[in-house]
């Protein structure tokens, strides 16, 4: 089935593995980098003078050309403008010239490139609870940029591989597995794979954390929100793994093979304490975030839920529901059970659908699934009414012919 899918598996480079989250488990043995020590190494109008850096930039320019014309981008000007504002405020001295691209990929991920462009995946927008958290991820990635981590990492790799040439071949292989791409970037300018290419060292992650905290505080966001992001992510990963009755993934995927990231979160909290100015007013700008993301929230939920990772999806819905349940959330809760389809899930899904349709914001699809649940429970009259409601909301629904046949039956 889907022979092309099997080919994808075979050729797949790295499974997930986000630069934003790489070494989240960058645990013990890494001393905290003090925010006070972090200054931007890159100012406005920076252009590389070293030959190797120039070469890397050239590749990055080609990558940006490919990324900017990708049809995987979400081009909604309200949202891209919003992201532009945020990166402008936390990106550092040169941030007004930055470009930020939003890709329609349901993973939690973001990456910043040394030529001054960032790529953010839509999965990120589902998981951030307020503007400060979104800014925190962007500030962290800007930290990698401001501290010139990509060229440093590349030079580190080159130095290491030069010294051990035979082992270098293996390092090249290991580099691939560890995510440091040492070949032709342009060849892999594919959005899905691109972001998983680059993993920074633990020291660099610590620097980015510290630099990011500085930038966040300057922009007026509560720096503690950076620690909260990781807290939420750990919660999600734990829920996902718990459902599969296994431990949180430590190899491929979002986490490196390190012990629990509590130490890193502790560091982030200490960073926040360092930079927070007592008495200064900070604002996480929750309302503005919810209002801006609102129009695409259904799409984000749809993308996530249909991946059928019930632990993670349920966790995310519960988190969003902390602001109060509504028709949209109850509907997607139902979808999670329907797709999970363990014993008893059909009944759970049916319950969620009937709860969803009570709310005025229930999407049309909620009525259709409600109708199907009723039909399966033998409540034909109620099912017909639900289907009629569905068709009333969506007269040109693509499955209208099928629904009408069900109503007639």
């Amino acid at each position, binding site marked *: 089935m889907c022979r092309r899918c099997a080919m994808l598996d075979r050729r797949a480079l790295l499974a997930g593995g986000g630069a934003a989250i790489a070494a989240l488990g960058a645990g013990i043995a890494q001393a905290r980098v003090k925010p006070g020590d972090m200054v931007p190494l890159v100012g406005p109008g920076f252009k590389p003078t070293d030959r190797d850096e120039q070469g890397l930039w050239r590749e990055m320019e080609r990558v940006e050309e490919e990324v900017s014309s990708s049809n995987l981008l979400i081009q909604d000007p309200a949202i891209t403008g919003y992201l532009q504002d945020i990166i402008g405020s936390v990106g550092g001295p040169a941030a007004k010239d930055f470009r930020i691209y939003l890709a329609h990929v349901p993973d939690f991920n973001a990456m910043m490139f040394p030529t001054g462009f960032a790529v953010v995946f839509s999965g990120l927008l589902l998981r951030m609870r307020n503007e400060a958290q979104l800014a925190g991820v962007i500030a962290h990635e800007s930290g990698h940029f401001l501290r010139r981590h990509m060229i440093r990492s590349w030079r580190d790799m080159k130095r290491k591989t030069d010294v051990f040439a035979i082992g270098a071949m293996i390092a090249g292989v290991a580099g691939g597995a560890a995510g440091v791409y040492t070949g032709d970037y342009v060849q892999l300018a594919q959005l899905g794979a691109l972001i998983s290419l680059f993993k920074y060292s633990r020291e660099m992650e610590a620097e980015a954390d510290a630099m990011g905290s500085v930038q966040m505080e300057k922009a007026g966001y509560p720096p503690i929100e950076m620690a909260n992001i990781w807290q939420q992510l750990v919660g999600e990963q734990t829920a996902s793994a718990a459902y*599969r009755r296994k431990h949180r993934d430590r190899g491929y995927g979002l986490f490196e093979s390190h012990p629990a990231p509590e130490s890193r979160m502790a560091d982030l909290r200490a960073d926040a304490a360092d930079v927070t100015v007592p008495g200064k007013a900070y604002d996480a700008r929750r309302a503005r975030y919810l209002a801006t993301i609102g129009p695409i929230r259904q799409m984000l939920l749809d993308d996530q839920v249909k991946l059928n990772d019930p632990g993670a999806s349920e966790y995310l819905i519960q988190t969003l529901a902390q602001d109060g349940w509504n028709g949209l959330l109850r509907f997607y809760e139902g979808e999670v059970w329907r797709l999970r*389809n363990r014993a008893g899930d059909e009944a759970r899904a049916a319950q969620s659908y009937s709860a969803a349709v009570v709310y005025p914001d229930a999407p049309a699809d909620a009525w259709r699934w409600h109708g199907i649940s009723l039909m399966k429970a033998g409540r034909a009259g109620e099912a017909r009414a639900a289907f009629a409601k569905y068709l009333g909301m969506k007269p040109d629904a693509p499955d209208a012919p*099928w629904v009408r046949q069900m109503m007639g039956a």
Partner: protein
Amino acid sequence: MLVAAASALSACSSIGAGESGFSDYAFVPVKRVDVGDDSLSVAAPRPWNRHRGTLFEDIREVEDWTLNGPILDGMSFVTGLKNGRTLVRQLKSEDQQVPKFRSDMTAPEIAAMLESLYRVRGGTVEFKTLSLQPRQFLGANGFELDFEHLDSDELWRKGRAVGAVIDGKLYLILFDAARAHYYGAALPDFEAVVASARLK
């Protein structure tokens, strides 16, 4: 000097295996053939290529064909898939799971199962259902699903599936191809194959 160096180099044997040896694909002749678990037979209007199943990747009830290679087009046969089985092999430990087939699934549920297959396994980032309508298949009340999807290689693909649940088992023929040129080019083949389909 460059030229001298070049002429000192010989030509070599061709790159890779070329078209010799064993291929994963077998020839499908223009006549009635059994597909999947052999409970279904079809006849194609022109030769296709059948992917030989592998023990670890494929399941017995599913068979894949292609005209130009699976990146460009593909026709898949699902024959007698039982309750609780999945369309592809997967480990229980995987975070994202292709849903299992259930005998009491309605057409929208089967369509949703296919959509998740594409999103979880096929690198699909956008999936649009174009239509879902009743259609007779193998003498039973089945359905036809038309859809489009954008995949992570930036290519839009288009598909049609015709299926029915018979005696609690799923029978489905699915055609999926690049929306530009390839879908239209082989859709008549798909319709001919569906029309020819017979349970044994």
